[in-house]
């Protein structure tokens, strides 16, 4: 970054002459110091994972969850300032609830991402506020089934509602990442936080958009592995892996956002450590070969 903002970094709502908002860029710095979080989208659903750095031995293992449920079918994970993330989740829950109040149906993931993107963007506009110190990854599975209206009591007309296209496929898995500027895109795989570079490199190696789609279980294993790869052993020693997933109605979570069951998570973590061990052994072999030469 160009040394300092030369006075243009003192407030939101003031551009620098070369068209930058320094406060937003500083917020991105806050994100870059946070524990790595990733999201993987595959055909069967979405997996969210976060590297939760253990700040103190006095914290109860497994407590203080970092992944949050927004609505039954949507989960959020974030890197950066945890209190900012908590507020982000609160707001997302309000949005999801008010959507239900208005439309009597669950909020589509795309609409939640749009509203939260707009919310974060509003915090880049005013003197009186600072931008969010988080990048959030929003994962959801919009129901592919005929969605009942909340509170509906009957089946409705037997001839079917008008204007329906029986061939059209509805719903599916969605993954969005929202940055402090309010910018959001949909992703096949998203990574943010400290280890994002390594995590992105690993995500790009996966065939997420190709025809040969990975299963949700594989995605869980990959997520565990990527978090371990992205973890920087030298600086942070201890961390907990937290993972959640969302599948379709016929998948393991029945369309709900829930934590990955303990057995599956531990198995994935064991595999991840094994792979990591193998690759570091190889590295050692290579370097010892070089020494011999």
């Amino acid at each position: 970054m160009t040394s300092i903002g030369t006075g243009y970094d003192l407030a939101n709502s003031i551009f620098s002459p070369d068209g930058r908002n320094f406060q937003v860029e500083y917020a991105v710095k806050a994100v870059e110091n946070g524990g790595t979080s990733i999201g993987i989208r595959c055909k069967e659903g979405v997996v969210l994972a976060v590297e939760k750095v253990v700040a103190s031995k006095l914290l109860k293992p497994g407590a203080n969850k970092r992944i949050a449920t927004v609505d039954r079918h949507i989960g959020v994970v974030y890197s950066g300032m945890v209190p900012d993330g908590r507020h982000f989740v609160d707001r997302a829950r309000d949005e999801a609830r008010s959507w239900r109040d208005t439309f009597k149906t669950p909020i589509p993931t795309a609409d939640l991402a749009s509203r939260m993107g707009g919310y974060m963007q509003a915090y880049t506009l005013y003197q009186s506020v600072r931008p969010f110190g988080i990048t959030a990854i929003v994962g959801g599975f919009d129901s592919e089934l005929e969605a009942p209206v909340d509170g509906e009591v009957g089946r409705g007309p037997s001839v079917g509602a008008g204007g329906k296209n029986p061939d059209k496929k509805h719903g599916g898995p969605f993954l969005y990442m929202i940055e402090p500027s309010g910018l959001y895109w949909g992703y096949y795989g998203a990574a943010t936080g400290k280890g994002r570079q390594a995590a992105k490199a690993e995500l790009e190696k996966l065939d997420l958009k190709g025809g040969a789609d990975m299963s949700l279980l594989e995605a869980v294993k990959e997520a565990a592995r990527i978090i371990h790869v992205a973890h920087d052993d030298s600086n942070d020693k201890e961390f907990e892996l937290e993972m959640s997933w969302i599948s379709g109605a016929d998948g393991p979570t029945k369309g709900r956002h829930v934590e990955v069951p303990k057995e599956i998570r531990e198995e994935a973590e064991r595999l991840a450590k094994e792979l990591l061990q193998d690759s570091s052994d190889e590295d050692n072999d290579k370097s010892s070969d070089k020494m011999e030469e």
Partner: protein
Amino acid sequence: MDHRPQAWGRPRDDVYGAYDASYLHSNTPKTATQSPVVTGTSVVGLKFADGVVIAADNLASYGSLARFTDVKRLRVFLDSSVVGFGGDVSDMQYLDRHLNELAIDEAYDHLTPDSSASKTASLNAANLYKYLQKLMYARRNDFDPLWNQILVAGLDGAQKPFLGSVDLRGTSFTSPSLATGYGAMLAQPIMRRVAATEEDAARLTREQAVDVVKECMKVLFYRDARSLDRYSIAVVTKDGIELKEDEQLEKQSWAFAERIRGYGTQTV
């Protein structure tokens, strides 16, 4: 010209006369629901050894008119309890949405629905029953009751079968067998034959309980003019909920009707 901003864009008083705001103020007192409109009839529930059976027909009546014939009056809460609604259907919809919100709030804190630890920590049927009782009583104290009688079926904190009733006044009680509306007169005696006490109910098998409840639904269809032969039935056990929403009454026999005298246009 009138320079006050609040007068801008309004018809001029000197031309059109002062605005008549009288329609904004009504002289009658504030009123709330005085009687239900679209109604569902009986709900019946019966405990057995390791669960509860609950049933209600699929009819919503508009007065005496059988207006809606595919209405689902059994609602599942958190995959662990079933709530059966008798009475006003719009109030049932309100409660259903309210409970849906509550269930989503529960999901915030319990990310793991499958582990046994979170199952006991989240709202069970006994908690839900107490919650609904408080809600109904608060609404009756506002003189704006939710016009329902509700049965809550599920398991309590100790994973024992639970069956409770709450009505529009907030009156609440539990019993091995319960029925709302006409069912309280017609179905209760049948269920009490097999489950007069908790001990009796604890000896019932699932099949026996289901048979008795189906028998009750049949008797109710025979004698309750606001009922239907299509019904929903749910069985709640530790293993989860089995809900069937489109059942048909079987083995009906209207022979007894021959002997009934005194209703309608009969010549004899």
